[in-house]
């Protein structure tokens, strides 16, 4: 199994306070459809007030996991806890959750106010109080002046804000959002991301957010769970995910990545030496403690951690410029390199300092690159 047990520890305690109980605990939950496993047994703990993102390519099981938490699906195995209460058998309408759907799913036969009030009326909140609380939540999403409109009379972004208000007004124990912004255009999307993050933070509502957009995940989340093929590959803060990916999949799915293939020459007394297609590289042994001499490994480095240096610089990998892409603020250089594991190596250089296509250059690698060994490759 790839999942590192330490990644499944409870969310770390706030210093000086007793360890917070998780708001959501997913305990070995798995799900298959017609014999095909859509979600492998998964363990996850989500802190109160935390913004957790499920990130992964299409079909990796994000919606399945979210629907299991919501109660639209029943797990084959495992248990679910919300606020320490076992909810595996609890039907959707008794779980006290708020859901925001991708296509808004606003009730077309009710006006905006009635939509937002709905969850309060089902809970038996008196009409006047329900109205006040709905208006208050509409103010929170800056839509109080549209209370009388029908959903059809609103723009996509406005509809999504109504959907958010409708889910938040019931003060849910968990807020679930399944690709809520994917139908919006880029600018609106960015604005909505900020707005959601602000509202989520001010209300302190525990949130599970599903997206396949890594930028969205990096900018909004407290923690990200990167998924692939029905499995959580890594859970961590955006910084951890970006800087220390657990495996090749996470490294290449989140952000741009350069991968080089190398062979371990020696691994002893605190030093690891690699042979990268003829270039010798010396690293601290802690970069890959388990690597044994003779083993093939992959060296992973973000473009911004690599530097263009003069050919012949010791420890730098020789490469040739294959093409340059002008990007306004900088130029993206694509380099052919004998040590590259797949495709060219990519670097960003200032516009003023672009070598010619075909020029021989060298790439200095970061001092502590991530090394993938064994299954992580």
């Amino acid at each position: 199994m790839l999942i590192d047990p330490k990644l499944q520890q409870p969310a770390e305690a706030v210093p000086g306070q007793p360890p917070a109980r998780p708001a959501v605990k997913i305990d070995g939950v798995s799900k298959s459809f017609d014999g095909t496993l859509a979600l492998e047994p998964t363990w996850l703990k989500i802190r109160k007030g935390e913004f957790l993102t499920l990130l992964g390519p299409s079909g990796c099981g994000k919606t399945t996991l979210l629907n299991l938490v919501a109660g639209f699906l029943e797990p084959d195995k495992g248990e679910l806890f919300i606020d320490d209460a076992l909810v595996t058998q609890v039907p959707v309408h008794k779980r006290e959750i708020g859901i925001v759907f991708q296509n808004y799913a606003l009730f077309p036969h009710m006006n905006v106010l009635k939509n937002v009030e709905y969850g309060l009326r089902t809970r038996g909140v008196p009409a006047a109080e329900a109205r006040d609380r709905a208006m208050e939540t509409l103010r929170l999403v800056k839509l109080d002046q549209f209370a009388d409109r029908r959903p059809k009379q609103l723009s996509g972004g406005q509809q999504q804000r109504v959907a958010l208000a409708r889910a938040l007004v019931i003060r849910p124990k968990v807020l679930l959002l399944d690709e809520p912004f994917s139908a919006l255009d880029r600018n609106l999307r960015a604005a909505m991301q900020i707005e959601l993050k602000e509202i989520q933070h001010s209300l302190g509502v525990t949130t599970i957010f599903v997206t396949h957009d890594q930028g969205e995940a990096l900018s909004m989340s407290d923690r990200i769970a990167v998924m692939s093929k029905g499995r959580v590959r890594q859970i961590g803060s955006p910084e951890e995910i970006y800087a220390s990916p657990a495996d090749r999949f996470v490294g290449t799915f989140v952000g741009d990545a350069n991968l080089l293939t190398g062979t371990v020459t020696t691994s002893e007394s605190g030093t690891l030496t690699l042979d990268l297609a003829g270039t010798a590289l010396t690293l601290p042994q802690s970069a890959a403690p388990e690597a044994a001499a003779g083993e093939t490994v992959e060296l992973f480095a973000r473009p911004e951690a690599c530097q263009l240096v003069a050919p012949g610089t010791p420890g730098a990998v020789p490469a040739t410029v294959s093409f340059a892409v002008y990007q306004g603020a900088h130029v993206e250089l694509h380099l052919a390199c004998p040590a590259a594991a797949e495709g060219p190596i990519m670097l960003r250089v200032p516009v003023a300092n672009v070598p010619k296509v075909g020029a021989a250059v060298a790439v200095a690698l970061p001092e502590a690159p991530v090394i993938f060994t064994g299954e992580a490759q």
Partner: protein
Amino acid sequence: MTKRPFLGWFVTPAGLIAIGIAASFLAILQYSLRAHVPGMLDPGGFTFDNFTTLLKPAYGKAFITTVLLCFWTALFTLLIGYPLAFAMLRTRSGWVRGAMLIITLTPLFLGEVVRTYSWIIVLGNQGFLNSALLGLGLIDEPISFMFTTMGVVIALVHFTLPIVVIMLAAAIAHIDRKLEQAAFSLGAGRVRVFLTVTLPLSVPGIVAASSTAFAWTFSAFATPQMIGGGQVVTISTLVYQVGFASFNFPLAASLSLAGLLFTIAVLSIFNLGMRRIERQGAY
């Protein structure tokens, strides 16, 4: 515009039929404005008498009977048809769905006469229904279904059900399941989800189905004729009686026209109601 030589061929059959229908309507119209000469099949001169005759209580009563028949039939067809359509769409078992579909639709392939005849067997005093109720000790003497409005309504409901179920199923299938999921997640139980989301969103389908049921029943002839046996007089049975028993073609023609105008009026009201609902932006 480019010439589309085949288009003419495509619409020709429909055009010919339309001309035929228009011609027959004109024939009925001119019959309705001619005097009836007793003992003669050919009508007499121009007159409005046929329409003034229609104001007599006997004809008014037939109108009222027909409208009530339509109303009860539409109501009971909806009450039976909606759950049927709903269950048919929402069942998880393909086998159950298939069976329901077949049971619902087969009556459509039997003629009205065959279906009505089977209802006579079921509804008669010694029929299946009465025998069963008597046998179970639920009643002491047979209920008369034959020659009563109730009997006619029962048979008409069966006659109307397939078309109503098809229309309702189309409307319910159109409802976004995500809306129901959203309502669930907001704390509504099954019944509440149905009453506040599914049912209101089926209204366009219900309106369309009931207007169709209305027109469908209004034009029914064999059922009221055979099960009503002259005791339940509707517009269609009256047209038949006046036209083919008394051979008063002009009066039959004016009665048909009045029925047609009435149906058009009712359907327009349904249509207006539908437009109002649509204008609210709800569907």
